[in-house]
């Protein structure tokens, strides 16, 4: 099996072997969803179920951020009435969920992806276009 790395170790020592990009899935419209198709480059590194689970959770989180419902309408109306000055003190619902997503990705990286020599990049850093998975070189190959 590939030797395990901690996230810190990896970032300091490993070299990038490849990057895989999980593109957006537009079949439900313009909502932010990512394709759950398992990329072939990751076959040797991680379990398919695990990966799909991660992407599915991400999709659910984004759906929650963009959900149209009572609370979002309320927030919208309140914001309009206060001429959007309320956002100087309060975070929008979307921003709150984005923070949740960042934490989730950090957690996933620490627990699941870094030990396998992979790194997920938060999609917000790529303009919500892709989920970038960085594959680090497996040093155990050379030994």
């Amino acid at each position, binding site marked *: 099996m590939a030797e395990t790395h901690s996230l810190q170790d990896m970032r300091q020592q490993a*070299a990038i072997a490849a990057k895989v990009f999980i593109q957006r899935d537009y079949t439900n419209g313009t909502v932010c969803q990512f394709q759950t198709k398992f990329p072939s480059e990751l076959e040797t590194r991680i379990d398919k179920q695990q990966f799909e689970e991660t992407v599915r959770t991400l999709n659910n989180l984004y759906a929650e951020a963009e959900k149209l419902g009572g609370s979002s309408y309320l927030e919208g109306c309140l*914001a309009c009435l206060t001429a959007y000055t309320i956002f100087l003190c309060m975070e929008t619902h979307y921003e709150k969920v984005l923070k949740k997503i960042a934490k989730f990705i950090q957690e996933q990286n620490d627990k699941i992806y870094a030990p396998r020599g992979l790194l997920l990049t938060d999609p917000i850093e790529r303009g919500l276009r892709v989920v970038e998975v960085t594959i680090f070189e497996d040093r155990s190959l050379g030994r």
Partner: protein
Amino acid sequence: MLHLRVAEPMRECEYSQISTRSSTPMETPYKKRTPKRRKWQAFPGRNKFYCNGRIMMARQTGVFYLTLVLILITSGLFFAFDCPFLSMQITPAIPVIGGVLFVFVLGTLFRTSFSDPGVLPRATPDEAADLERQIDVANGSSSGYRSPPRTREVVINGQTVKLKYCFTCKIFRPPRASHCSLCDNCVERFDHHCPWVGNCVGKRNYRFFYMFILSLSFLTIFIFAFVITHVILRSHRYGFLNTLKDSPASVLEVVVCFFSVWSIVGLSGFHTYLISSNQTTNEDIKGSWSSKRGKGNYNPYSYGNIFTNCCAALCGPLPPSLIDRRGFVQSDTPQPLPPTNGITMYGSTQSQSHMCDQAQCIQSTKLVLQAAATPLLQSEPVILTDEAFLPGRTSLGGPCSGALPLGGHPTPPTSTPKLSCDNDMLPFRNEQSNGLRHHHTDGGHHHFLTPEEAPSPPGMLPCGSPLGHSHTIQGFYNPASQDSLHEDSVRGLVKLSSV
């Protein structure tokens, strides 16, 4: 091991050559250099930024100032000349309501003009390369020129939608996004570029735009109606001509309002229709979802009923800005492609995050692999093509040039005018890694040169410690035997060339 030893003195030689040549302040540790740049300063689109990135507008703002002036003058005249009479004769609520409307109009105008309409950041070089590869595979050719229009089809709610590839931003545009040629950005849910507000109208500022034109219609009608009322009431008392003498501004206001009412009220009506059917101006003009295009052509984004459509457009969650204007540029994070207007971005980027170390190691590893595997590759077709792709390559004078055909670039090559000349040490690395990239991408993609490799990880090539550098590399790369070293080199190169 033999190969490494041979390579080492070459590298040392090269390092010292570079260090003696360049005597610019760039040699000093980067950390002490220029202050960190914000992302808006490196933004590739044609936008103007104010207040340190807080305000974002299009390049042409002349008409916006005209709008502002018209609104301010007309309202100002109304409050100054008509309101005193009206508040006394009818009710003081008139200036109050007028005031509220006026403030609302200005607020929404500023919000529309100054906010990010929903600009999509351009693709990072890695993403662009990945997409290009996919497209080439799909097209079945790796041609060096622009292939026929690249499109992807996707089925959304039963309707087939074509996603177009944007050549400027190097992305497949999401549905409903469009590239604004005036601002040179792809904007999500692009409605139109409005010169009156001096900005594009897109996903993030559409509701403000709509509220602006709606409130402006009310304000215009309000002012028009009450100025007429004022003139009539006054004329009853003092006669028409006297009225005109006492309050000449009223005439001006009436004229301005009369002409504005038609256009603005018309526009409000049009946008009300668009919102209720969940279409963009772009789509309506093109007739994308009109039934005239064919039977069964419907709008896949509509929620079905008018109320939901309106609520979604006006009260839905406000998406965050994707471009992070006020964030700091981190030299090692993949940056989008350079601006089309040729502004250099990476001359003075800084990095202070831990990712910096990663970049350092990426570069050093690439160097090692290339250096170590060079003797292996002298007959490899990869390198030959690379050499062909590197115009203007100057070879290092002296003993160093022979063994490292990829490495001899002490000066910025002429093909990369975008690299600022102060990064003397960078082209050395750039051309190496870039050379490999060129093999896979269309020839002449100079864009790939600048972003990832250009910003030098601090301390990457310190003039004083080439030895230290090679030691770390040796430490990293410590195979048991020469054979495994060969194997590793080749494997590493194969991996590198596929990046």
